[in-house]
């Protein structure tokens, strides 16, 4: 057990070194997309509220809407910052061969790398929050709501990691998986409430969406940060169930896919 933990710990340390080998690239890579996405949404909602910034649309004034999206930025950074963009390419170009030789399974290596990334992301997110708070851009809704929201978003990142792993290992069958990843990303952005809060969606649609993982990726974590959520069984229960389903699917796909692996380029 101890030796297994040491393997994970050493891999995490190596991942830190590799993630931060190119510092500027690292910061741009993790903070850039979330920041651009935030400014696109800021402009969108500025135009919508342009006539009257005090008007309420579905219970949101302009400032509460922006506060919602600043928290969406934090959730995106911490919960969906990790991407396994290289996984499908690594499979297609045979770069995972090395990891199949080591007595440390590939999923363990990949997961350790994710944990290492999340440690760095916790640090980056905290700095972002401090900057946003000290400049008055973000509003706090109590220490408990903040800590709870933070922990829940880390839970969300586990789901996101499993989803990324799933789209990555489809490369055992598909030559290119980026379009699938883009489709997932667009669907997630829309149905998770990252662009439009779920209050704007038809009620029937929301009740269906509540059984999918989407709203638990952005909308519910924001609501936890805002201290507006009391019933927590669904955010935990349903996401937990989806994580379990994804782990089972990933295990199945990996076992089947590895039989097709050709170890190209060696």
């Amino acid at each position, binding site marked *: 057990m101890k030796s297994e933990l040491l393997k994970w710990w*050493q891999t995490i340390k190596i991942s830190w070194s590799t993630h931060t080998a190119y510092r500027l690239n690292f910061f741009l890579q993790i903070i850039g997309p979330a920041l651009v996405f935030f400014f696109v949404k800021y402009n969108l909602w500025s135009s919508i509220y342009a006539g009257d910034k005090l008007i309420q649309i579905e219970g949101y004034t302009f400032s509460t809407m922006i506060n919602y999206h600043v928290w969406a930025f934090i959730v995106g950074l911490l919960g969906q910052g990790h991407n396994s963009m290289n996984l499908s390419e690594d499979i297609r170009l*045979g770069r995972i*061969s090395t990891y199949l*030789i*080591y*007595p440390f399974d590939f999923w363990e290596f990949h997961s350790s790398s994710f944990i290492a990334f999340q440690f760095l992301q916790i640090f980056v997110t905290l700095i972002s929050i401090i900057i946003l708070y000290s400049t008055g851009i973000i509003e706090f809704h109590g220490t408990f709501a903040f800590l709870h929201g933070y922990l829940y978003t880390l839970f969300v990142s586990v789901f996101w990691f499993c989803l990324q792993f799933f789209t990555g290992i489809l490369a055992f069958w598909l030559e290119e998986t980026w379009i699938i990843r883009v489709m997932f990303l667009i669907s997630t952005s829309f149905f998770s409430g990252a662009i439009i809060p779920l209050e704007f969606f038809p009620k029937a649609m929301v009740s269906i969406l509540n059984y999918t993982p989407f709203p638990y990726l952005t909308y519910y974590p924001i609501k936890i940060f805002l201290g507006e959520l009391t019933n927590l069984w669904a955010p935990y229960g349903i996401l937990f169930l989806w994580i379990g389903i994804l782990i089972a699917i990933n295990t199945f796909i990996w076992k089947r896919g590895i039989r097709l692996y050709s170890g190209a380029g*060696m």
Partner: protein
Amino acid sequence: MIKCQNLTKNFQSYIKEPGITGSIKALFTRNYIEKSAVANFNLEIKSGEIIGLLGPNGAGKTTLMKMFTGIIVPTSGTLEVLGFKPHERDKEFRKKISLVMGQKSQLWWDIPAMDSFLLLQKYYEIPKKSFTQRVAYLSELLEVKKLLHIHVRKLSLGERMKLELMASLLHDPEIIFLDEPTIGLDLLAQENIRDFIKAYHQEHKVTLILTSHYMADVAALCKRLVLIFDGKKRFDDPIENFEKILGQEKIVSFTFSKTQEPLDPIWEGLDATWSAAKDYVELRIPEEDLRKVSKKILEEKEVSEFSTEKMPIERVMKTLLTNPELLRKGDEI
């Protein structure tokens, strides 16, 4: 140690016509083909042997290596390495083997080699004391002490290869698979790597499976050669017998006091290789014709020197590569 019977690996791919029309067509219909990379391969390797796997590009050498190491799963047949089925990728099995790929770095590019070694120490569960001793011993032998703390991306290919070798030996593996370990290296670096492998084998008696296109590697290291062609085994014998694959032929060299005419019918069918000045030739002569042909040349030409020698494996391989029909008509073994 390694035993395979009727080992087969097929790969599926599809034929795509060139250009955008081909790409659109491929969206709707694909003409799949199945290619056999290794077919009904039988092999037995004993502990401590050094085997050279030879064959042209695409013959199936690397596919075999990948099956032996568990990277890919065989289509059919049986394979046992150290009592394990490699494709099941048991962790105990993985601890007992190592693979060095000349064309692929296994060290992490953006960190010094020593950091990678520390990671491998944890992966292979090497006790700290043994690890320290092993690093000291191998870095001394490979003369890389000064390179251990430099980022791998800053090293030359030769330096990196030495560290790759070092990484693969840290856990004291029982079998080492070397896939073109000297590819791209200059002559001196090739020799250094070869000398190290030879010295390491003499001391540790590990089993070594080597693929290389450099016959100097094979000649210096391997006692037994296995030739693969079109996924099938065509030769499996001690290196001394390799020339017999071409039949009973001898290499005879003649030096002449005058320039010769290479188109002279006397050289026909003898696979003549001329010097630039056309005053030296190497001929491949069937053993039964050796006397008759040599006598004729000595009588008709002004020969100043002549000698016969065993055919070097490089020459045998070259002959096989330029005349693949020699192998195709031969029996699969």
